[in-house]
């Protein structure tokens, strides 16, 4: 298929996800606890998009490659070395705002 409103179903049943470096795709996949290989498009060099993928890779949450090294990555990957992705903490933000407004 080309476009769907939500990939949540597909994500839920997947064992491995191979995706572009879009933040939404990466985060949605990691939050569902699925192993992820991020493929960087060398030609679409949008540095901003790469920042997050690079950081997630550095922190050990995702595997990382480009179009030409994808096959090699798939052959040699060790998915168990990927770390589980801890959820964000919006409660810290709420706490912070409450302090700003003296609501604690």
């Amino acid at each position, binding site marked *: 298929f080309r476009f769907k409103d939500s990939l949540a179903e597909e994500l839920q049943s997947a064992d491995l996800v191979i995706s572009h470096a879009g933040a939404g795709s990466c985060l949605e996949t990691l939050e569902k606890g699925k192993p992820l290989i991020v493929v960087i498009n060398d030609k679409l060099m949008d540095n901003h998009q790469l920042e997050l993928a690079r950081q997630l890779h550095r922190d050990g949450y995702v595997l990382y490659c480009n179009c030409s090294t994808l096959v090699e990555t798939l052959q040699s990957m060790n998915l168990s070395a990927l770390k589980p992705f801890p959820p964000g903490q919006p409660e810290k933000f709420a706490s912070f705002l409450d302090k700003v*407004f003296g609501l604690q």
Partner: protein
Amino acid sequence: TGGHTTEILRLLSCLSESYSPRHYVLADSDKMSEAKIRSFEQKRAETFSESQFSLDRIPRSREVRQSWISSVVTTLYSILYSLPLTYKRKPDLILCNGPGTCVPVCLSAFLLGLLRIKRTIIVYVESICRVETLSLSGKILYYFSDYFIVQWPDLKKKYPKSVYLGRIV
């Protein structure tokens, strides 16, 4: 827009009902955010029955990769639109996280503050996608916001006046 809306709704998820009524401002070209917002507010109303919110639209200030000069013009046009809106709502708090739409709204509020019409606290949360560099909205609002929140330590180092709370979305 898209990712920004998802992030901001997550930021709102733990806020108490003191942060009410909520006025959402969207770009006129944004087709998907309204549904997400309504769904969020509907769920919220299940717990907090007195919950109130509204939705306003303003012209989009800038298209992706729009040139500098034309961006200034379109942003000025958006400010013209958002000034009366901000004046009408007189918010105590503006919470934004990066889409171009937030710049004119924040600048309007800042202006109303300078004119002693209403003092609004501006809280900017940079997107989780921004690890090493700030978005253009971030670079501008770093100087106009009361609290500027970043989600990665590198940015805290580069922008010392920012607040770092870790990942909050």
